């Protein structure tokens, strides 16, 4: 399998492989929004006492994926905007197994495979699943063409798979077995880095016994962990149905939900980046107060805190009081403070660049202290072709930019803007500092909206036609 493009940015502050347990919190702030979900259907009331694993809210647009209470506590709804606050936290009580009657009822309705899917959804494991092509939450009752499992997380920085797998290899393989029980004959692809570390070998030896797991070795280069790229490289077409994709934490959650029937409410997330005093991994529950993490790890006075990695993450504003249910890492970048004097004629020994225009290209790889600086002025495109060379999706970013600049949405669509995986590398390498990724994200959203409108319009017309026909028939009957 051949990959094209890609580029690794070596950012200072790589999280080490330890997992630190944060002290138990007194209050939890559970955000009602995360990257994919909006938990608008609130299931509890002010002052309710909940147990760990109880459903606090559901997302009606995403197959009713639940927001689970990670701990027992008292619900406060109005305490913070867009958050459910849990006070008087106690760890001891955990939500018991699912009620027997309920289970039997579901089993009658959906069969054994159905009950497993129901467990995944209601115990919080389903939220770790992605549709490889769209990145959305797949339908838990659907049938995938295949499942892609990836242990890689290459965006700097999000929680790494090898760290999470440490000492939990058995859970991982058991999780894979459980996952297989959901399928009939569809294969599971396990994407692993092709490094020869002892640990990687250990996993490979473990997996070799499972004939239904196909190993897929890939280079450690951003963004080859992207599910859409993997699905395309494996030859799947989005028109043939969904391909499920899941990362290490998802497999561990599947194991917990199906083997132990326990709710999955613990997250491992990384904290790293230039502005972090001790880059590492943290074990927290969703809703963990963000301020506590900031106090302990962020030392830069003027820093941008990101939810996710530097390439795709969003800015974590002060309004976000707690860790959300999808958070995989917190990256801290110092804001640009000083303006460099005659920066463009410096030899650039300490500047890591995709191009070879700096002296650092004679140097071995090193980690650079990067800030949020744009590092240049915005200019028109000079057609240097770097964006196309680096693009992992094989599209032509400069061409799409040209089309979008001239408002030629249809042409951009034909040039397959939909294949863009939004990895952000084109924006990163552009010497004219054009924000290509944002343009593409916006254009894709616009195209999706237009398509939805067209679909609705067609439905409306069809209905109108049907009604007309009926009316005509009725009129005919009446006249007869």
């Amino acid at each position, binding site marked *: 399998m051949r990959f094209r493009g890609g580029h690794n940015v070596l950012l200072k502050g790589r999280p080490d492989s330890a997992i630190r347990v944060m002290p138990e919190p007194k209050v939890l702030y559970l955000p009602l929004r995360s990257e994919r979900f909006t938990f608008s259907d609130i299931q509890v009331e002010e002052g309710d006492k909940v147990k760990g694993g109880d459903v606090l809210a559901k997302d009606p647009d995403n197959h009713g994926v639940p927001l689970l209470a990670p701990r027992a506590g008292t619900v406060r709804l109005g305490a913070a905007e867009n958050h459910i606050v849990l006070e008087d936290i106690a760890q001891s009580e955990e939500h018991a197994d699912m009620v027997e009657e309920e289970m039997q009822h579901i089993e009658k309705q959906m069969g054994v495979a159905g009950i497993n899917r129901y467990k995944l959804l209601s115990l919080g494991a389903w939220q770790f699943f992605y549709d490889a092509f769209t990145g959305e939450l797949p339908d838990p009752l659907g049938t995938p063409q295949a499942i892609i499992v990836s242990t890689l997380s290459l965006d700097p920085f999000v929680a790494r798979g090898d760290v999470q797998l440490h000492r939990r290899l058995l859970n991982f393989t058991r999780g894979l077995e459980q996952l297989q029980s959901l399928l009939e004959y569809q294969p599971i692809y396990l994407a692993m880095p092709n490094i020869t570390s002892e640990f990687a070998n250990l996993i490979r030896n473990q997996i070799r016994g499972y004939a239904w797991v196909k190993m897929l070795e890939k280079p450690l280069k951003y963004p080859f962990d992207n599910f859409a790229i993997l699905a395309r490289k494996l030859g799947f077409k989005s028109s043939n149905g969904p391909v499920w994709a899941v990362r290490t934490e998802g497999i561990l959650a599947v194991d917990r939900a199906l083997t132990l029937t326990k709710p999955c409410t613990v997250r491992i997330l990384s904290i790293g980046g230039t502005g972090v005093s001790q880059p590492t991994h943290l074990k927290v529950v969703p809703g963990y107060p963000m301020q506590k993490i900031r106090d302990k790890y962020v030392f830069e006075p003027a820093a941008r805190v990101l939810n996710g990695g*530097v390439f*795709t993450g969003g800015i974590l504003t002060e309004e976000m009081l707690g860790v959300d249910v999808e958070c995989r890492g917190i990256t801290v970048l110092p804001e640009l403070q000083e303006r460099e004097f005659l920066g463009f004629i410096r030899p650039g020994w300490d500047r890591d660049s995709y*191009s070879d225009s700096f002296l650092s290209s004679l140097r071995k790889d090193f980690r650079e202290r990067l800030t949020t600086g744009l*590092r240049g002025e915005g200019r028109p495109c000079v057609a240097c*072709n770097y964006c196309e060379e680096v693009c992992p999706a094989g599209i032509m970013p400069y061409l799409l930019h040209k089309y979008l600049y001239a408002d030629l949405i249809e042409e951009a669509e034909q040039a397959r803007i939909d294949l863009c995986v939004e990895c952000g590398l084109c924006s990163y390498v552009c010497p004219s500092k054009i924000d290509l990724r*944002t343009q593409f994200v916006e254009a894709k959203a616009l195209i999706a909206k237009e398509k939805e409108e067209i679909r609705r319009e067609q439905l409306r017309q069809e209905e109108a036609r049907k009604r007309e026909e009926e009316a005509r028939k009725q009129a005919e009957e009446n006249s007869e």
Partner: protein
Amino acid sequence: MKWLLNVIEKVRPTFEEGGKLKAFHPIFGALEHFFFAPADRTVCAPHIRDPLDLKRFMSMVIISVVPCVLAAFYFFGLRFLAMIIVSYAAGLTVEAAFAIVRKEGINEGFFVTGILWPLILPPTLPLWMVGLGVAFGVFIGKELFGGTGRNVFNPALVGRCFLALAYPKAMAASYLEPSHDLAGRLLTWVDGSTADAVSSATPLALAKQGEMVATSHMFLGSISGSAGETSAILIILGGTFLLMTRVANWRTVAATLASFLLLTTALVGGNRASYDMHGVLGPAVWHLFAGGLLFGAFYMATDPVTGPTTNAAKGIYGIIIGSVTVLIRNFTGYVEGVTFAILLGNIVAPILDEIVIAIRIRRLRSEG
């Protein structure tokens, strides 16, 4: 350098909206950003950016022509400095005027044109022609199309083409026999009026009359020709640097030179062109080093804006430039054809891109 930043901050209001000199904001901005990197920050993902910007990109080209510039000083004297100054002054005036009218920043692209321009001129050309040519090139070749990044033709070559057609006699008479002293003409001023100036024909012009200059001289550069184009070895040196930094694409250069060598060899081997030289490869290599071919291939054809963008089109573009040069040199009244060949290449570049892009989009259609 805090004091300089303070000065800049102090005068800034004069050039901002509402200030007295707000029309000159592009010039102020260019100066400010020459000294200090911009303070802009990213606003959304990706939150970090590559250190390469257009200033650095263009500086690489300027650094790579330093050997040629030094050689021009050595062979043709201090007058070359005056040519550089006139070139920058005239060109920047046009550039700045357009920046003010368009209310855009002054683009770095001109700094490359300004240094490449005197290098492709005969060394004793009257200075007013130097100024006129570059102003014409920047105005017609670049600004009318919308400035750097939107121009179709290489501005320096448009200027040269203009001079060659408008003042053919002055151009032909301005070539100078280089100094053969060890010290060269490092500190001397030589122009058309100086006694020691010997106007001499270029090797390509001599070849038309059947007189062949030794290949070794052309390799080192002690021949008559445009100021920066005489020394093959220094052009290859600077050009290799440019290829190594990946600012210039190797495909264009390789395709140009390879197609040129191949076609010349074929012509000489097939007795379609004969030179007073032994063997088949001899005249081909001689032609490779003669005139502006190497300079054009390394510095002019590789201009990312006027050349094609896609890699496949770059190869075809190079082949067109290389072979058209051979055809002009051997079968037309002109002794040198690189300028015309590259301008012709500029014309076809967008079409080549269209074709390659159409093929790629057709292939993309079946993906995912």
